[in-house]
């Protein structure tokens, strides 16, 4: 958050999109339920523009929906821009999510009309660990093809967030043209350079929030001419916390320490 505050101060007229490739939550640890209550609040307060519903997160989203229905967490925290192009569910308490979001951004004053950015997500579950009784999960490739076609007249720039591995993302970029940015939020501990495969720029953020991946685009004439620069921003102890979110994190750490005693 403090990075975004500093960014807005340095580049007050430039538009910034904030995206999360998914797998936000903790799972399988005694402190996970406590951690996740803070993760959902921190995520809500980060004012993101899109969050992918990953296979890792899906059971926790279900838990969050149930907790909100029971009045254990604020329903407000579930009002986040969760997206998935290939998942549907009829579970009554499951948090609301959208197939895609289209943002109209004024990026090029000469263009006269805004740039329409379509943001969607693809959940990757090749081993079918997600309950098919509660969720319908379409094959990522089929869903990507369909969503690119659906967004054809509605978006100038298409972003897909996914938890699939880099190799699968490269194949997806090859077989489904028309994806401009493919965000691969897999479990990667090392930084990888952004790579252009066909129409798609593939970017993989580093796990556990150690680095932020930033793509700077100079877009002219819709998305017909785009200059791209990408880099990774290390988020270590040299970056001060935003005061409000820093306080939330301190509170979370204190509560987690109590659980771990």
């Amino acid at each position: 958050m403090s990075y975004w505050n500093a960014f807005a101060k340095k580049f007050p007229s430039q538009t910034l999109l904030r995206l999360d490739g998914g797998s936000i939550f903790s799972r399988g640890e005694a402190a996970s339920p406590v951690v996740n209550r803070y993760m959902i609040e921190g995520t809500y307060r980060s004012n993101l523009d899109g969050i992918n519903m990953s296979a890792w997160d899906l059971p926790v989203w279900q838990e969050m929906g149930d907790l909100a229905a029971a009045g254990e967490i604020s329903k407000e925290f579930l009002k986040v821009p969760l997206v998935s192009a290939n998942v549907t569910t009829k579970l009554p308490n499951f948090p609301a999510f959208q197939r895609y979001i289209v943002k109209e951004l004024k990026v090029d004053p000469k263009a006269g009309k805004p740039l329409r950015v379509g943001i969607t997500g693809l959940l990757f579950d090749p081993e079918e660990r997600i309950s098919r009784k509660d969720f319908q999960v379409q094959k990522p490739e089929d869903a990507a093809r369909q969503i690119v076609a659906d967004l054809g007249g509605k978006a100038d720039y298409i972003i897909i967030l996914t938890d699939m591995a880099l190799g699968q993302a490269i194949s997806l970029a090859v077989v489904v043209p028309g994806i401009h940015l493919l965000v691969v939020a897999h479990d990667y501990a090392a930084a990888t350079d952004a790579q252009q495969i066909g129409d798609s720029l593939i970017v993989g953020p580093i796990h556990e929030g150690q680095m932020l991946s930033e793509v700077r685009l100079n877009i002219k004439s819709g998305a017909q001419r785009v200059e791209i620069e990408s880099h990774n921003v290390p988020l270590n102890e040299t970056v001060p916390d935003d005061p409000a979110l820093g306080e939330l994190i301190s509170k979370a750490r204190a509560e987690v320490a109590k659980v771990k005693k």
Partner: protein
Amino acid sequence: MKKNILLLFFLCIPLVFAAPASQSPGPAQAPAATEFPVQLLQGSENFNLAIDIYGDLRGNFGPCG
């Protein structure tokens, strides 16, 4: 040959089980940063749209702060 290997094995035992001469106090706690390191904002200034991406936090508070 066998004798030499056995000798080497027994000579190494004290090295494996030896207690450290003094206990390390551990890494010093770094003071909390107060000023934003502006060099992190470096990069192309010729842009009209920036996209910031993170993912796979898995319960680490990371960029929330």
